[in-house]
């Protein structure tokens, strides 16, 4: 995955977080600072610079440890938000 490596080299120090999505499956997110909102239909996660609003069905956190979060459920939409929860 040389391309991903180059991508992260370019944004190093900018406070971006790495997210890996498996279409129709789980999502693995690094650098989660807080969980803003949490229902089976919607999860709001905050990272260092930005936030993320995830909508779907039967969402739940399979594992959450030390800023690493494994999300399970059916993800339908994903929206980036600012630190205060406003739309970008």
């Amino acid at each position, binding site marked *: 995955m040389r391309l991903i490596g180059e991508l992260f080299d370019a944004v190093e120090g900018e406070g971006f977080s790495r997210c890996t999505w498996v279409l129709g499956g789980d999502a693995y997110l690094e650098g*989660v*600072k*807080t*969980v*803003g*909102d*949490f*229902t*089976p239909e919607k999860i709001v996660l905050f990272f260092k610079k930005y936030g993320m609003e995830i909508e779907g069905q039967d969402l*739940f*956190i*399979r*594992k*959450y*440890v*030390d*800023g690493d979060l494994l999300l399970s459920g059916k993800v339908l939409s994903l929206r980036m938000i600012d630190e205060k929860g406003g739309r970008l």
Partner: protein
Amino acid sequence: MIKNRLREWLDEKTRVQIAIDGIMPQRALLKLKRAQIPLYDVKKPQKNRILFSTRKKDSEKVFAIFPNVCYNSSTLSPYVAQKVGEKGLGKVVKKLKNRIGLLLGGLLFCMATLAADAFVFGIEFVGSTVYAREAQMALEQNGIRLFRPYAKGNEDLVCAQLLQCNGVSFCSVQKRGMRVRVEVQLSPFTDVNLAQGDMFIAYTGTLKALTVLKGTPLKKVGDSVQSGEKIVGAFMTGENEQTKAVPVIARAAVACTYENQVQAGDMQSAFATAYLSLGLTDTDTIQTTVIERTEQEGTFHVKIQFTVIRTMNF
């Protein structure tokens, strides 16, 4: 030492399910994250409740961060953590501890079954049962007996003995569960050696039962028979009064009475002498025995009522 390690390992494999109640309970996750407590299966079933699992050793930290105010009123916290249940190996161990009697009973049953499996609790004859008695003897001679441990490895010896019998073409001895299965098959081309001639009875008495499969009965049940008398003829009469010679297949039961003066030292010897003179077999039965001393020294009056069963090709 081992016990402690086992307990640690069990704790590692056990997950404690915890519920946190409060306004916006997801905010409680931040504190748990800062405490570096791994959380599993985080769900929000209600607006003011969040459910998650954590390792057993970490659950103590969770309760330290969010104490239950009901038990410790001096500590104020916006969230209350409650233990809901356990998951994983710990739950299984706990369930097994609660059902220790059932578990021990099951184990005992399994052990008893395994132990009983080595014994013989029944012998089953399959195929032809003509040589059932010979098979029984062969089994006993080779150490395979009822209610005894199964003598493994002697099956071939039993089969070798049975295969020597006239007409036996196949033999197999197998232990199936707690029973021994003996299968004997006769060759369809075997000449059957049936005894020829009429059926005679060697005892004097009353005919109690007569079963004739082949041949012609010459006496009826209730008739008295004399020793050496013919009771079944080796012929059958057809529709046109034609007679045809057939081998007799019959079974007769005769009720007899032995009455005699026997010279002997004591009553037992007198009975033994009389019994031996009767020539009884295993199938014959003695109904009554009366032994009386006579006036003559060393002489006993012996009266034995018995039933003899005699067969011919039966």
